[in-house]
């Protein structure tokens, strides 16, 4: 059976590519028996969700007029 390190890594890999049947079964069996990894699996989805909310709210940064003229001065030197 796979250990916790490999199982949690497979959990993340499954978001990027289709796992083999053996690997998918491996996760299911491991998670059924291991409380910590079960917790990780749930939290991994929760973190996706939180990051999604969090990072979406950031404003784009724009150079201010003052910074632009500063930049121009320094470059033209």
């Amino acid at each position, binding site marked *: 059976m796979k250990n916790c390190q490999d199982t*949690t890594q497979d959990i993340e890999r499954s978001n990027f590519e289709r796992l083999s049947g053996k690997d998918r079964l491996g996760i299911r069996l491991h998670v059924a028996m291991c409380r910590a*990894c079960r917790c990780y699996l749930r939290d991994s989805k929760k973190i996706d969700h939180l990051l999604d909310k969090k990072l979406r709210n950031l404003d784009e940064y724009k150079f201010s007029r003052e910074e632009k003229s500063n930049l121009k001065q320094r470059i033209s030197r």
Partner: protein
Amino acid sequence: MSKLRDIDLAKDLVQDTFVSALTKLDTFEQRSKLRTWLTSILNRKIIDHWRKAETRYTDPISSFFNQDDKFGHWIEDKAPNTSIQNIEDQMTHEETMSELQECLNTLPDKWRGIMSSKYLEEKESDQICNDFDITPSNLWVIVHRTKLLLRDCLQNKLDT
């Protein structure tokens, strides 16, 4: 900017870009647009920056999983013991978001950049790999490391 999450650093790199562009202006062929050319210089600068930063960073995997006789099992006090599922029951939305920001700030720059490309800009994986100069398997390995760190950081916030 979204790749770096550090306004001052971003400004510095933009400035560097203009400087190198000026010194290499004669090599600029008119085949591409100026903007494209400048962007490609900037992207190169960002990748260089990360490469320098990355060598100072150690892989967190050994602080989460035993690397000796009980290989690959959770180190006892690092094992998930409370779910952060319910974080929003214990904190307001604003509190949750500011704790998450604190946790994000502890990540290496490059990883934070990858997370924002993935979640904020919703870029495709191959685009992210290209931008950050990594392979597809690097990408999910980094996401795994990042989530371990974020999860642990949030769990500590809940315990206190």
